[in-house]
């Protein structure tokens, strides 16, 4: 295969130069957006006509739920790039997205539970939306476990990619679960045919928080990708170190 421009960015050394700067930018964006977002969410947005002050849980819950699905989609896309085109960084991106996505999913489940008790009267319900998000959490855990269970990274990447794409079926199910079946969870408020059903004064903090979560994901992903690349380089060097004197040392 010929060296085309896309492989320049896939070059880990090139990546690390870009990643350092991008990490700083993403971190600053996450902190600034998060500070403004929380200020609007907690102090400068109205209480809901129905839910009162409890509605403020939305500003941490909805972005977490969005990121849970976004991270899984990103993981599936990166897995595809790694599986089909053998993109050198794609597998690393997919692998490092999983724990972040699992974290967002956990946050969505916990904040949803804390919101459900005062509003619905139940911490948990086996409703289609809640159950499919719980399955998403288990898919992340399974994906991470698979990576750890197989020592050979090339094989692990291949099998994990298959799991990621099979599990991707769940993402549209989560999105449409509230439309396909009667559910306790309310239908979509933002991405819907007739426009958002959230008042503008509440959309400001919500979008700021979504931006903060997204920037936070980028920052965490870049940091852990750098970490993983360094760990792999270290492992390779140790391997070279031990194989070189193999003829002399009995192992």
């Amino acid at each position, binding site marked *: *295969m010929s060296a085309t421009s896309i492989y320049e960015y896939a070059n880990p050394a090139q990546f690390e130069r870009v990643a350092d700067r991008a990490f700083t930018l993403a971190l600053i964006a996450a902190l600034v957006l998060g500070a403004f977002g929380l200020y609007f969410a907690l102090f400068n947005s*109205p*209480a*809901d*006509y*129905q*839910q009162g002050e409890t*509605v403020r849980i*939305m500003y941490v819950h909805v972005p977490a739920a969005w990121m849970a699905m976004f991270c899984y989609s990103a993981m599936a896309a990166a897995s*595809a790039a790694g*599986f*089909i*085109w053998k993109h050198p960084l794609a597998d690393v991106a997919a692998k490092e997205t999983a724990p972040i996505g699992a974290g967002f999913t956990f946050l969505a489940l916990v904040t949803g539970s804390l919101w459900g008790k*005062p*509003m*619905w*009267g*139940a911490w948990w*319900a*086996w*409703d*289609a939306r809640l159950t499919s998000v719980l399955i998403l959490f288990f898919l992340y855990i399974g994906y991470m476990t698979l990576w750890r269970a197989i020592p050979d990274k090339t094989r692990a990447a291949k099998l994990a*990619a*298959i799991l990621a*794409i*099979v599990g*991707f*079926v*769940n993402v549209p*199910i989560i999105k449409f679960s509230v439309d*396909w*079946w*009667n*559910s*306790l969870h*309310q*239908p*979509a*408020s933002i991405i*819907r045919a007739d426009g958002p*059903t*959230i*008042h503008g*004064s*509440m959309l400001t903090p919500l979008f700021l928080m979504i931006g903060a979560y997204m920037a936070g994901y980028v920052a965490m992903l870049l940091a852990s990708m750098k970490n993983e690349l360094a760990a792999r380089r270290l492992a390779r060097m140790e391997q070279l170190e031990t194989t070189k004197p193999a003829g002399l040392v009995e192992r």
Partner: protein
Amino acid sequence: MTKKKRQRLFVFGGVFAAAALAVGLTLTALSGSITYFYTPSELAKLDATPDRPIRLGGLVAEGSVRYEQANTGDIAHFTVTDGGAEVAVSYAGVLPDLFRVGQGVVVQGRMTDANVMAADNVLAKHDESYMPKEVADALKEQGLWQHDEVGS
């Protein structure tokens, strides 16, 4: 695209298509049990077995809420409607804060008779609209309010 890459693309796409098909068929077959509650109209067609737990969802009908004093505590009586059919519910317990006329509720309980239900638990369902109280009041004042519509 080389032959190898095309092959891998087909494997990857094939795995996804197979998984989507399998899950899609399963969900279609199970759609009756995935649904969290039945509306009163669905319940009427369903011919629910008495004494089996079931969930009913709908809006609390206008003027249907009354409380009965009993020595074990208050019993709430109300009607759940979806615009087509109605079910009378009785419930001895604490109602959620959001419970009121026109509010969506999910009632967990047993059918004691056709269209009569004894509830073990009442959950409140809120809709997808979020707005400040002043905006809600202004909309109601101008007659533009459309969130309490039966069946929505």
